[in-house]
């Protein structure tokens, strides 16, 4: 795969494993990865009735901070994301676009009452970043549970899949990606 990817850490989110995340995403996608800081007005995305942040609005904010139109960007946030029809989302992307967003909020084992596990969190975040980048490359969800494009509705689904695209998805990546579609999760 060719191209460059910015990992944009939202509003001072600076986990100590940020460097490992960049290196492992770079390895999984074979893309040059550059970490940047993103300063977003996230209060504007907060829905007090749900106690969560509107993912679609935050994704639009991420897109506005794209440093170079020839690259892609994935925002990394630690807040809980939602879209109006669903209780939560792990992330969101423009299908065939350039921007995506991933939340680590529900990827942390602490959220489920379990002890923290940093390697596990990094692994889950790498998979979600690769998954969302896959959507920006035009891929939709894959029925192969081990493919990184498999839809994860539980965090266990994320653990189960690999960081790799299956052969079929890999084949689709070699075709021209559709452009200008909307925002998958």
């Amino acid at each position, binding site marked *: 795969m060719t191209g460059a990817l910015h990992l944009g850490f939202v509003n001072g989110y600076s986990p100590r494993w940020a460097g490992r995340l960049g290196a492992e995403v770079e390895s999984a996608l074979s893309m040059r990865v550059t970490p940047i800081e993103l300063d977003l007005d996230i209060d504007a995305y907060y829905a007090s009735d749900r106690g969560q942040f509107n993912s679609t609005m935050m994704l639009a904010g991420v897109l506005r901070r794209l440093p170079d139109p020839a690259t892609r960007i994935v925002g990394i946030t630690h807040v809980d994301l939602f879209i*109006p*029809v*669903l*209780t939560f989302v792990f992330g969101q992307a423009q299908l065939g676009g350039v921007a995506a967003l991933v939340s680590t909020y529900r990827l942390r084992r602490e959220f489920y009452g379990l002890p923290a596990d940093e390697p596990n969190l990094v692994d889950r975040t790498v998979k979600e970043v690769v998954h969302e980048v896959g959507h920006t490359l035009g891929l939709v969800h894959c029925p192969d549970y081990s493919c990184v494009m498999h839809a994860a509705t*539980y965090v266990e689904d994320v653990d189960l899949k690999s960081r790799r695209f299956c052969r079929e998805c890999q084949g689709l990546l070699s075709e021209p990606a559709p452009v200008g579609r909307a925002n998958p999760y």
Partner: protein
Amino acid sequence: MKDGKRILIVDDEPSVRNSLRDWFLADGFTVETAEDGHEALKSMNSGPFDIVVVDLKMPGMDGITLEKRVREIDPNAAIIILTAFASVETAVEALKLGAFDYVTKPVDPDELSNTIRNALRQKELQEENIRLKTKVSEMVLPSPIIGDGPRMRHVLEMVETVAGTDASVVIRGESGTGKELIARAIHSQSERRFFPIVAVNCGSIPETLLESELFGHEKGAFTGAQYRRKGKIELAHGGTLFLDEIGDIPPKMQIDLLRVLETHRFHRLGGNQEITSDFRLVCATNRDLEELIAEGTFREDLYYRINVFVIEVPPLRSRKEDIPALTRYFIEKFARAMGKPVREMSAEAEELILSYPWPGNVRELENAIERAMVIGRGEFIEPTDLPLGVERRNAATAEQSLETIERDHIVRVLREEDGNITRTARVLGIDRGTLYNKLRRYEIEREP
């Protein structure tokens, strides 16, 4: 991935509508959205949806009313009701109307995925059920092809040869020779045998209805089109389309049919959605297609498209060696159906059926035996039991052409049946469309 599956989302809130659209796009669906019931019903004209997600509370037409309207247009769509206000009463009402399920906003991603997956699974099972039922009914109906003489053996060899290919076939032969049986034999020996064979008699359907019969129509495409209806071409997907009396197809329809044969794509009447159907074409005719081309009533390009492989089914008079076996088969068939003992043919009756020219071919023989089984009383079938009057069998002379004999025979039966077309066709052992053609060809006037 849900390649090709279509989903319609109807919700007045743009944020809900758009987020659901994006969710389903990521799952590989083809998605359309509508902000109210009226827009949703317009979208239904673009083609069938596998799933329709309907918000319960909307201004104007509410979700329950829309559900009823969607059901009228497409009874097969899986409807999922979406609401912010969980109410047992409305849920029960929606489900009673046939909604597949009911989910409350915001919904857990896993619950939504499961609901959609189950809806698709149920829809696929329903479609498979219909396909299998059709298949079973077809397995019960076909009659065997009787005939061990050299001419029928040759026909059966050709059937076997062509069945393994996907080539278009034209079956030619007089009325009543069993062209449809040959078509079904080709289908049942082909790779497509697990899919339906769909038959259309182009000669017996008025031109105004034939187009809708073949291509289907959307609701409201014309006066009386109250429901969406799939056409025979669409129903034949995967299987065989059998067009009987292809020579009678009107000129405009010939152009439309030619286009479908070239692309295997078409639109329903009043519809915008392009539909693809993968079918093998088998046609039959008792008309001289080359003559029709010369007259300018049949398109030459269509002729070359359909005329890849030709099977000529011989008239019964040219395969008299098969008449005893056919007679035996029909006697046993009607004896079983009527609960009567099997009867034998008397020597005189056998001589009669072997000398008679059978202008209505096997169908006329079948009708003659049925009538003999109904009216006959003795151990043997006698000449008087057969509807072949003495004057009729003696009417022909060696100098008369076959056409003259056929014309005279039709005139006589028509007169005996007081000009009643249905009864005359039944006695002659031909269908009404064929009888009309013959009346036109021989310029026979019906007496009032």
